[in-house]
């Protein structure tokens, strides 16, 4: 709690935390957008979300080790995750997509555990980071430092989000995805190949997560067992913003990034994870309270 005083003594430090938090929050928002997409279209909550993020990060790390420039590695990691997502859908998710939410949560949680252990086996349990080779900006006479890679990743995340939104809005396939989200049966009757739509949605989500993870590996650190926190962050953002609310997801993501950065600083880094998961409980209780006021339940 001593750190709280620092914020009052040196207000400029709050600015530093705010900027860092918002820049990281864009990546959270990107992963959350993917979760909202899968949730809205396929009606499953993907608990392997965070593992896709970490896997994207590790792929970028492997590509960097192989000599590829990190910025060229990002699209490669994204494409690779698209394929991985497609395969996972075809093998496992296709069988649980029609079942109740509990089974699909548990199945994707199982996939998450499997991916964690595979990454642990292949890449090792060490914390890794990818050096982007970009410099640092010093603002306000060097009182505030901004890593250039964070700004770059912020814009990449935002641009990807906009591209995805436009894809869903404009293209024929995007329309099919949105039609399936609105009404599965009606879309089927109108000739939408819903199975293909599901496969593409799940693969797209994996690809988005892969991109987010590649960015995370450059601005932060990755480790095989860090995935669950990203899943929970995505889930919280979607709960707060609501399904199908792109602007809301972006704002909630940025807000979460900032809140987490402040909490990590004030409470100490060892309580940052505790903060995320406690926040989840608080948000769910709050949501429940609001619903109980309305006297209605969502299935």
């Amino acid at each position, binding site marked *: 709690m001593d750190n709280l005083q620092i914020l009052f003594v040196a207000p400029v430090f709050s600015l530093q935390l705010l900027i860092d938090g918002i820049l990281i929050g864009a990546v959270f928002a990107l992963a959350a957008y993917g979760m909202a997409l899968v949730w809205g279209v396929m009606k499953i909550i993907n608990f392997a979300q965070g593992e896709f993020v970490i896997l994207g990060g590790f792929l970028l790390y492997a590509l960097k080790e192989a000599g590829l420039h990190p910025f060229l590695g990002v699209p490669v990691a994204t494409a690779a995750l698209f394929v991985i997502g497609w395969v996972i859908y075809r093998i496992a998710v296709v069988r649980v997509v029609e*079942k109740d939410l509990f*089974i699909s*949560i548990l199945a994707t949680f*199982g996939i998450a555990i*499997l991916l964690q*252990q595979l990454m642990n086996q292949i890449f090792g349990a060490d914390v890794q980071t990818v050096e982007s080779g970009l410099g640092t900006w010093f603002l306000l006479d060097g009182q505030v430092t901004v890593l250039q890679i964070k700004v770059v990743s912020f814009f990449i995340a935002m641009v990807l989000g906009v591209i995805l939104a436009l894809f869903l809005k404009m293209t024929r396939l995007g329309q099919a995805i949105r039609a399936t989200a609105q009404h599965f049966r009606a879309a089927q009757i109108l000739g939408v190949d819903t199975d293909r739509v599901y496969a593409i949605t799940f693969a797209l989500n994996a690809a988005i997560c892969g991109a987010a993870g590649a960015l995370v590996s450059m601005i932060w650190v990755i480790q095989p067992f860090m995935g669950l926190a990203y899943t929970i962050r995505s889930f919280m953002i979607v709960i707060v913003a609501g399904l199908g609310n792109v602007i809301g997801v972006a704002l909630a993501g940025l807000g979460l990034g900032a809140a987490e950065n402040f909490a990590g600083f004030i409470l100490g880094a060892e309580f940052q994870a505790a903060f995320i998961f406690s926040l989840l409980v608080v948000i*769910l*209780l709050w949501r429940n309270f609001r619903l109980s006021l309305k006297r209605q*339940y969502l299935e």
Partner: protein
Amino acid sequence: MNSDGKKIVAYGGILVLALAAPWMMTAYRTQLAFLWVMVLFALTWDLVGGQMGYASFGNIVFFGVGMYSTAVIQRNLHYGLEEYAHVAGRVESLSAAEYLTGLSLGMTVGAVAAVVIAAILGVCILAMGMRGPYFGICTLGLGVAAGELASGWEYVGAGSGLVTPVFPEGLGERAIFFYYIFFFLTIVTFFTLRRLYSGRFGLAINAIRDDEDKAEAMGIRTTRYKITAWCVSAFFLSLTGGAAGHLIGFIDPTEVAFAGPTFGVWMILMAILGGKGTLWGPVIGAVIFHVTQEVFWTYLFGWQRVALGAFIVAIVVFFPQGLMGWAQERWPERFGHRVEGTALAQTAGGEGA
């Protein structure tokens, strides 16, 4: 032989086998003790997750609470805090009487603490009407948050964990001692649950599982039943945790006490594998799961956790109804279900004629 006689023979056979097991397989005593821990996990999870339909991902909280309470009580009873932390628990060992006093007192306090926590959480979460995936994810958050808080809390050893007091006798004796403790606890839990399921309580929580709104409209006090079931589950899980900490000998906040991604998920999977919502399902599921896991450890060393992950996915994706569910579909008349297929066939035949 009538069915009661068969049951007595079956229960007697299991009893004899279970009592003799640690002497037949002396090398596997610790693993055998863990077998009963797994059965207890699955049974206590199934009370809330299977029978009541409230799939919790965070029951591990009560396990951790029991474990920490027991260890902390024992530490405070016999050692000073400073002295204990300094040598990480390896001060001069306790006498058998001291050890047992501390253990039983600690487990009692742990059980009470877990029930109180379950009641408080029940009032905050269950009584407010949180359901379905939101309940599951909320409890998941609780489980992980508890682990993270414990690993930041100096009083309980923070991230470096707690070492439980050394067992007064040798390690082999420790495994035997805890084997019988867990076996006894399993018997008590099993028959308590059997008693609960066969009465009004079982009918009420099954009604909650099938349709909570209708159950409430029928006049069942759903909130009271939900919180009671959650507390019963917490009570037995806490006792399990209290003893399990001493069997393992070392309490790590996130890997042992609040091990959501391992124990926390396994308890769900074992219940599902055996068949959730049945009395024997969790027991059978736990035995199969534990044996599979030990086989993976023995033959796939290095890749055992990957294999386990694949096994988990396979259970959920390909076999979600579980063994008991499958058996019920296969031989419905043996489970006392009215066989509708034959009735339909008869009507169809009658129409045909």
